[in-house]
């Protein structure tokens, strides 16, 4: 075991750091990770914002995992009628306010149709 100093290959080929320093780094990073986890858990909730695509502004909401949205005030836009909320900008995936649940931070887009 005393003569095991063989050069390492791969991405660590030229690593020149003592185990002691590495220990410090591991501990430091672990503490940081735990802090981040704690911070994340303390600031729970997903932000759901509404893009009205040119209509009147709608207030954003903070929701927990698995909750439904509180029905937002219906936006208005001159010359158009509101057609409901969509999960994507292309307005292909409609969002059902009663059944769809939140699982991430997201933006809902307003659909409009000519009256």
């Amino acid at each position, binding site marked *: 075991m005393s*003569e*095991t100093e*063989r050069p390492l290959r791969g991405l660590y080929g030229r690593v020149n750091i003592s185990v002691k320093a590495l220990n410090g780094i591991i501990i430091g990073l672990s503490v940081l990770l735990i802090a981040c986890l704690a911070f994340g858990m303390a600031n729970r909730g997903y932000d759901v914002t509404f893009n009205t695509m040119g209509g009147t502004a709608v207030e954003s909401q903070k929701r927990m995992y698995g909750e439904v949205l509180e029905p937002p005030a219906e936006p208005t836009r001159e010359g158009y009628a509101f057609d409901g909320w969509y999960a994507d900008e292309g307005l292909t995936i409609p969002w059902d306010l009663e059944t769809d649940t939140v699982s991430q931070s997201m933006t809902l887009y307003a659909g409009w149709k000519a009256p």
Partner: protein
Amino acid sequence: MENQEKKDVLLKMEGICKSFPGVKALDNVSLTVRAGTVHALMGENGAGKSTLMKCLFGVYSKDSGHIYLEGKEINFKTSKEALENGVAMVHQELNQALKRNVMDNMWLGRFPKISKWCPLTSESKMYAATKAVFDELEVQVDPKTVMSRMPVSQRQMVEIAKAVSFHSKVIVFDEPTSSLTEEEVEHLFRIINMLRDRGCGIIYISHKMEEILRISDDVTIMRDGQWVATRPAKELTMNEIIRLMVGRELTNRYPEKDNVVGEPLLEVKGLTAAYSALRDVSFVAKKGEVLGIAGLDGSGRTELLENIFGIATRKEGEIYLEGKRVMNRNARESLANRFAMLTEERRATGIFGIRDIQANTTISSLRRYKVGPFLSNKKLSEATEWGIRSMRTKTPSQRTQIRSLSGGNQQKVILARWLLTEPEVLLLDEPTRGIDVGAKYEIYQLILNLAKEGKTVLMVSSEMPELLGVCDRILVMSGGRLAGEVDARNTTQEEIMTLAAKYV
């Protein structure tokens, strides 16, 4: 004797202990180096020489014990600290900035400033200082040469000059001659003698006994991490040293030669390399013969083997095995043609360090262990077991990482790897480099056993006694050409040296 006793003790290491998990690497080791002497440190690989030096330089922290430099207790944390206090080391493996020139390497980390107020580095000061050191040591190197353009031996001289330029009191030489030619060794010894006369304490680590007996004043021998003896070199003989190192009597350094040379097997005609100096080499090797290849470093010995094996590009030349032409364009083809090659740089091109013994043993003969399309664990471990037993490899298990074995045992694993391919021609490049005495004998025995089985062995070596002791004939290379061929039984080192210098 009384003259020597008057010389002051320069470095004293007392009761040094160092443990690694599960292993006691150093057990109460002491070493005393007096000013103006060369102190040889000897021992088999794994005896703890390097560990002891690493404790001195602070690479490892010692568990217990004391180190005194000129009577003051010291405990270096880094090798830089050691350097600044006058303890330098010339490493076996050179760590140099190859893209930079000589003086940059000499003054790395302490570039001289133009003046106290001008923080720019002064090229002229650096040049003058380097030149002065070189003149003193009679090194003929232009300080502005780029390192990578110089041969290893000159780079080593630069390393030595660097140690000297620190005005070091204690200089450790770790296997300094492993890549030097005889002439360069002479030069090195002149430098060492000069340093000794100046009052430096030299610690000289080497496996080469002839050198040790020539150059050193005292010899300390270690075995298995323990101090065995410290004696004046004058009172020691080679056999005595071996006995102390191995812990038993080694009456014969070479096994008895009882191989029978048979019919010609391998014929090489006009071999010329595309990218090295190797030119027009032709020879015939016979069955059951151990054919030595001698020559200075850079004479094309290694290149010859590499070209035969196909890992270097050939320009011209033909290879015949039993009269049939073989191409050997790459290692795979050579393998299929029943060639095998043990490379010189065991660590770089031999072992798979982090893989276990089994993987290292079976990698070249994997297709033999297939059952259907899949590899059979049983066959793999049987083959490995055969390798361990027939080579008498010392390893805890097949699953041990090869890097934790000693050099000799690593070499045995690689030999087993090649024997499992059932080769007819074995090309061995420095098979005993960096291996301790006991293991060397076993390797010689293995080589002769192979010859007895009717295989042809080509063996390159820098150690002439080894070639004379093991080979039947010796080819001597010089400047990339074949300078001559001698019968190992009735030749002398002088004759070989003369041939080796023929085309230099």
